[in-house]
């Protein structure tokens, strides 16, 4: 059994319920300015809590930290079990960080149904946070599904495009389709545990607890079945190529805030690292599975990059670029070695700064010209130098320029891929070249060169709120790019434990004795 560290204060529960309570408070308020201020205040409080969690997190440790456990539905073995380890800790930070920025962004840009919007956004934050801090699979599933509700309404009610109804429905249906299969997979995990527990006279006989499930051995055939069931849930959510078709629609039609959440917080691939790999190590190591996942990753990298190259609209371009980036994440994860897994995790976090940051910039562009199509821009560098500069910094991070966070993540992934199967890595590097091509080409046409014909009146440069967003993103990008070790150290312990688990299989337990391969 993994060691659990507790904290003298139920801080994860606070993280979970502060936005929820905030949303309830907003319900009773009328003044719009007041509502915005309170919503921003709640998200700032949440960010402060997340920073406390990050600061008190013990690095280089595989244990579950800040653990909390309450019985919930005891006969079925469902409990309210929270905890974070090296795999999930940074997601907590990025969720709180991005929500705060979204609140800043929404201050001037949301004009209709402000109260409802802020409430929905806070509820979304609660559910997303829930996905990352729960250790009970049923609780996890509850948050996973609940997340669809605020997402659906955010796209449907505040989306900017004409097809937003369709996009919202498509997103919800696709994700639901995947999660139904995932639920079956979770049930099978529980049944397997039950059979094993009864045989060995272990209490409790039913459990959905992640840590309990880790102790039960599973036969390889069953692992493969469960792997593919979970896979459908995660792949639709991520979305992996070829399950990505809902993504461009949702990102195009939905509001910028939603797009930032969808593109910046990689829940699907988190699912693979959190559940699939440790619970089903033999299946994940299986030659066929690895090959299929790698091929899918490579197809995603190349397809996303090719399609992004010819997109004239910035938001569509970003949608396909995130398909391409997700390919890298999967590539690193299924390299199944330390560097690959660490790079994969770090890249998921990086995308929360770079891709999500680019969506913020797309929002800045949209609020100026009511469009992100290339024809609306041209030569912006002259009129809006700050906008041009920050678009460049964040864009270079998404390309993976050395000195930015993107480089560190991509390098680790390629290192892992080369260590595992170097020919996969050598195909993936093509994606890097196209990544540079599609971003720089868009940048060249919209920002450099002479003023665009369509630009009749002057385009304003960044305002205060937008500057706050851009600067805070740039700081994080450069911090991780130049000095990543605090972030890498947080992951080290759990990633090493995961690698050990993959090496030894389900028959041996994941335990606190797994040593770090340092020095």
């Amino acid at each position, binding site marked *: 059994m993994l060691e659990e560290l507790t904290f003298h204060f139920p801080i994860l529960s606070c993280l979970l319920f502060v936005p929820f309570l905030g949303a309830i408070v907003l319900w009773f308020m009328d003044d719009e300015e007041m509502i915005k201020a309170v919503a921003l205040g709640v998200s700032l409080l949440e960010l402060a809590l997340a920073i406390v969690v990050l600061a008190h997190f013990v690095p280089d440790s595989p244990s579950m930290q800040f653990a909390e456990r309450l019985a919930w539905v005891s006969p079925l073995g469902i409990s309210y079990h929270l905890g974070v380890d090296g795999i999930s800790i940074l997601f907590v930070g990025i969720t709180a960080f991005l929500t705060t920025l979204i609140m800043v962004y929404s201050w001037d840009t949301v004009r209709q149904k402000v109260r409802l919007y802020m409430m929905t956004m806070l509820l979304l934050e609660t559910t997303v946070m829930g996905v990352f801090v729960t250790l009970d699979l049923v609780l996890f599933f509850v948050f996973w599904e609940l997340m669809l509700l605020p997402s659906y309404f955010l796209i449907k009610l505040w989306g900017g495009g004409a097809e937003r109804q369709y996009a919202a429905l498509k997103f919800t249906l696709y994700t639901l389709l995947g999660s139904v299969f995932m639920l079956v997979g979770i049930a099978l995990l529980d049944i397997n545990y039950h059979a094993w527990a009864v045989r060995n006279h272990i209490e409790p006989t039913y459990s959905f607890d992640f840590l309990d499930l880790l102790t039960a051995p599973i036969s390889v055939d069953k692992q493969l079945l469960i792997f593919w069931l979970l896979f459908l849930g995660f792949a639709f959510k991520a979305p992996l190529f070829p399950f990505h078709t809902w993504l461009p629609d949702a990102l195009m039609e939905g509001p910028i805030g939603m797009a930032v959440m969808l593109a910046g917080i990689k829940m699907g691939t988190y699912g693979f690292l959190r559940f699939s790999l440790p619970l089903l190590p033999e299946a994940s190591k299986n030659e066929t599975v690895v090959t299929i996942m790698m091929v899918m990753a490579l197809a995603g990298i190349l397809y996303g990059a090719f399609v992004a*190259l*010819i997109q*004239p609209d910035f938001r569509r371009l970003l949608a396909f670029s995130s398909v391409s980036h997700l390919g890298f994440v999967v590539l690193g994860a299924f390299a199944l070695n*330390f*560097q690959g897994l660490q790079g994969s995790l770090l890249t998921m976090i990086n995308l929360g700064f770079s891709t999500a940051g680019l969506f913020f910039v797309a929002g800045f562009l949209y609020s100026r010209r009511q469009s992100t199509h*290339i024809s609306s821009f041209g030569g912006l*560098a002259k009129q809006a*130098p700050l906008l041009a*500069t920050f678009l*460049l910094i964040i864009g*270079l991070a998404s*390309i993976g*320029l*050395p*000195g930015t966070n993107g*480089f560190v993540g991509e*390098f*680790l992934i*390629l*290192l892992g891929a*080369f*260590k595992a199967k*170097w020919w996969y*890595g*050598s195909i993936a*590097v*093509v994606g*890097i*070249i196209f990544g*540079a*091509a599609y971003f*720089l*080409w868009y940048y*060249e*046409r919209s920002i*450099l*060169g*002479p003023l665009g014909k369509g630009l009749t009146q002057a385009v304003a440069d960044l305002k205060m709120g937008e500057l706050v967003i851009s600067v805070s993103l740039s700081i994080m990008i450069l911090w991780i790019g130049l000095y*990543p*070790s605090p972030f*890498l150290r947080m992951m*080290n312990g759990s990633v090493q434990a995961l690698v050990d688990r993959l090496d030894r299989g389900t028959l041996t337990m994941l335990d606190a004795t797994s040593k*770090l*391969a*340092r*020095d």
Partner: protein
Amino acid sequence: MTDYILLIILFAPFAGAFALILIPEKQKLMVRVTAASAAGISLLASFYLFYAFDPVKGGFQFVQRYEWSKQLGIALYLGVDGIGTPLVLASCILLFAGIFVQWHTKDRAKQFYIWLLILAAATIGVFMSLDLFFLYFFYEMSVIPMYLLLGMWGSHTKTYLEMTDSEGLKKRDSVGFIFNFGSNSKEYAAMKLVLFLSAFAVLCLMGILLIYKFSGLNTFDILILRERAHFEGPLATLIWLLIFFGFASIAPIWPLHSWSPVGHAAAPAATSMLHAGVLMKLGHFSIIRVAFEILPETTRELMPIAAVLSIFSMLYGGFVAFYARDTKYVIGYSSSSHMGYVFLGMAALDYISLTGAVMYMFAHALATSMLFAMAGWVYDQTHTRDIPSLGGLVNRMPFIAGCTIVGCMASVGMPGTVNFLAEVMIIVGSWNKYPLQVIVAVIGIVLTMAYLFRMMRGVFYGAMDQHYAHARDAVAFVDRLPFVLMMSCSIWFFLSPGHFYSVVRAGVDPLVARITKVVPVAESAPPAGPVAGSAHLTRVSTEGVSQP
């Protein structure tokens, strides 16, 4: 202080770039002075480095090491040997000169200087890195600033932006734009340069990752890898080819050169200077640092490839330069042609020729930068680079004309400039192994003379178009400073090459000894008392192949 000299040289430009971010755009003088003083600190420190480098001790000196990730075996590991030292000096000279060449830039001068400083710092970083990860890190980092420097501050024919295809769509809005060969726009040049270089950088990355994977040492440390890593058979060949062609693309070797003249032509003067002066040398240097150090046997087997390609480089570049009408194309193609000499010197794997190659890199950096600075000045005054339409400018700008003559002389390799020494060493050193290439190289020198003198005549002599009657000479101190600096360095190192030569030999000797397993002639000779100038040779005989 001395211990941290490399950090000072590397981080002064970065610190300058950061300081510039904080200075408001309106304080123009402040912006320039900050950029110049950051570059000045690096320049002084690199002169100190150059003369403090101890050629008798040899090896890697002024070493600094900071762990970056122990688990991955990555460290910020800096150190220079006799090959890196002169190139660091060249980068600093060109950065300092470049800032003064662009002193009158009006359009977003602050941002221009920021990117120029980052570009120079990244190249300096490559010349210092003893860690493959950071070598690649700085190498990649130098490519992206080029994109902006070209795309924002470059120059091109105006009609290009209005060009439409048969369906009435603007050409720059179609994907074909990226592959649109033959166009003359700065955007095209910037895009081509970045895509070309990042595509080939990816080959280097693959090579580096293969070294990491198959060495099994779990480190990127070049010094450890060169002692302990052994590669054999097809794997070694594959890695060597990836590394060689990956880095040779920036050098640029024929037929991978096509991005380079286009880039030169579009770039503003200071960028062309850094591009031709040091960015191209990143290729040769990285091949020496990675392929020569880590794969010596494979280098011995495969380096003839470079000797063959260098023929084409020298001849093709020379002939195109002869027929080019654009001043910057002439200088750009002449640079790619001259890089063939460096490849020849490297391919011969001889003590003299490799020393000559390294000295040539330094010499060429100064010579070609003088010419680019000249072309930039003429363009600023006349707004054209078209040689036939220019002429007679010697009366308007005698100082610039004088500098151009010195620059041309240096490029040709006339005695009086350090290029002469370097060229002679390459020719002498390669003769035994590659006589054909040496003959081609000599023809190349004649060609160089032909096209450079043709350009000089076309620009400065003959009848002058009255259109250019307003053209000014470089009179102010800040305008003359870069020319004087580069000229005096070029002449100074011709007059006193002793220290320069022994520094380079200190880097070249152990390397060639390792690759060819042939020790310098001086070793077999009986020790006949102290002979002037042979101190470095006897050192090799005692310390031999081993390195710290």
